[in-house]
């Protein structure tokens, strides 16, 4: 069986080191909800979500009580909405509102999937759909949106990139009274995955089953505490320690995922092996990198330490779960990680360093506040850079950036709760508009031709 030490270790991880199941996310296909009008489709969507997910909160709370591990978030991801509103894209907002209402009724904090997949090119209905995003994000509370603008297989759709630069600006502008909260619920992806349980980028891919349960584990605090026990170990041993810790964390996730799927009558999808920080002290990815020996995250060596951390988490996690997927890696959102917030306030971490870090970890430039007067074309250029990293390295990259209305460098945005707070960071002031306005696409890289 197990020793007393092992039992107490598990309890310690939960009590003192913030081990938790970050999210149970139920993926729901909405394809059966397509009707001949937006109104009827919205009603069908509301009914389906409320019925299929009615027990998600109750089941998660039961599992949490039985296993003694907190399950922080209960969420839902749905089929990209642009696909089910293709016949009436201007009215997609009705479906968005129905999803938000369903989320509220179920008592869940976020529902993802107000999304479009335009990585190769933008169909007319998708263009119209994307134009609805800012308004929908401003008038809903729980709905999250994402747009896939590129992939290794298809290259980068630069028209979509330009459109997303404008969409972020508009989403922030319409929510100026809450520091641009609309933009914090919006993600631009390259190589988006269909089974991601984490928000704001979760959606339910068309290749998935009707009802799926995906689980995201977490535990940056557990990894940091494990490393604290071997302060002078060399990096080989540190990587080994991270691997072993990730194994244990993921096993807990796998157990909860399988049991949750069984009780909810859904298919067990995947376990996402991510280290997801929260603004709470002791739950920080930045703190792990600092524990490894960098004075402040963002200093030279940060990218190397992060590469090792990300790889070790995957190696430990892959063996612990029968099905791994989602984003799987260390997250480095600025506003959601107390170590990142402090480093950004000190100016130790910059947008350029964060971009470098995204080459070696999931997922991308996440929860970064920039001045409100940043041009849409500059935001689009930031998205293009990040998408290029994803396209060339065959990995998922994302941008969730908040051009905070009326704010300048040195000010702060505060979203509260899990979304945290962030200092407004500087962007390069030189003009990128010609590149963005050229349009067209960046062709798929040569190494994508594998057939």
């Amino acid at each position, binding site marked *: *069986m*197990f*020793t*007393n030490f*092992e*039992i*107490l*270790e*598990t*309890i310690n991880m939960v009590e003192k080191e913030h081990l938790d199941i970050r999210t149970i996310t139920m993926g729901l296909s909405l394809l059966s909800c397509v009707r001949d009008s937006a109104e009827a489709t919205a009603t069908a969507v509301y009914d389906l979500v409320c019925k299929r997910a009615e027990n998600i909160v109750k089941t998660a*709370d*039961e*599992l*949490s*009580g*039985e*296993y*003694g*591990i907190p399950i922080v978030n209960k969420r839902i991801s749905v089929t990209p909405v642009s696909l089910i509103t293709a016949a009436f894209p201007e009215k997609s907002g009705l479906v968005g509102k129905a999803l938000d209402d369903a989320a509220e009724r179920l008592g869940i904090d976020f529902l993802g999937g107000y999304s479009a997949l335009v990585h190769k090119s933008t169909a007319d209905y998708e263009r119209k759909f994307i134009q609805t995003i800012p308004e929908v994000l401003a008038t809903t509370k729980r709905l999250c949106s994402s747009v896939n603008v590129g992939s290794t297989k298809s290259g980068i759709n630069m028209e979509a990139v330009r459109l997303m630069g404008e969409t972020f600006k508009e989403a922030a502008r319409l929510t100026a009274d809450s520091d641009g909260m609309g933009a914090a619920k919006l993600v631009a992806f390259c190589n988006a995955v269909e089974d991601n349980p984490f928000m704001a980028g979760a959606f339910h891919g068309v290749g998935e089953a009707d009802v799926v349960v995906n689980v995201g584990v977490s535990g940056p605090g557990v990894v940091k505490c494990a490393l604290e026990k071997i302060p002078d170990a060399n990096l080989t041993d540190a990587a080994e320690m991270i691997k072993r810790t990730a194994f*244990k964390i993921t*096993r*807990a996730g*796998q*157990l909860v995922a399988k049991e949750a799927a069984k*009780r909810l009558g859904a298919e067990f999808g995947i376990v996402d092996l991510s280290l997801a920080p929260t603004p709470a002290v002791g739950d920080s990815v930045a703190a792990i990198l600092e524990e490894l020996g960098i004075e402040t995250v963002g200093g030279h060596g940060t990218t190397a330490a992060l590469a090792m951390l990300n790889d070790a988490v995957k190696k430990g996690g892959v063996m612990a779960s029968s099905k791994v997927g989602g984003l799987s890696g260390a997250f480095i959102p600025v506003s959601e990680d107390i170590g990142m917030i402090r480093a950004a306030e000190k100016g130790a971490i910059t947008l350029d360093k964060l971009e470098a870090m995204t080459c070696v970890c999931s997922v991308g430039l996440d929860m970064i506040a920039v001045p409100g007067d940043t041009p849409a074309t500059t935001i689009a250029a930031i998205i293009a850079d990040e998408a290029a990293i994803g396209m060339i390295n065959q990995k998922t990259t994302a941008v969730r950036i908040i051009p905070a209305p009326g704010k300048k460098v040195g000010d702060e945005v505060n979203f509260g709760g899990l979304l945290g707070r962030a200092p407004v960071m500087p962007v390069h002031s030189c003009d990128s508009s010609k590149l963005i306005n050229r349009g067209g696409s960046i062709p798929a890289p040569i190494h994508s031709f594998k057939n």
Partner: protein
Amino acid sequence: MKAIVTVTGKDKQGIIAKVSSFLASKGANIEDISQTVMGEYFAMIMMVEVVGSDGDLAALAKECSEMGKTIGMDIHMQHEDIFKAMHNV
């Protein structure tokens, strides 16, 4: 189903008596027990058989934790599967 009960806190008289009679009153059968006192620190780990279905354990775990507070101890009750998953390959 089997659950693991851990009781930790400052040592005092009557902990085992109180915890075990509480468990008995809830129909939980103690199958294994190990207990130690390190300095002033009391630690006890028990394996118990709990009768009932899904959901009952979560409620009982909550009662255990609340009962612990009345005697100044931390009591956790968790399904054994979580330890099996995390510590057995």
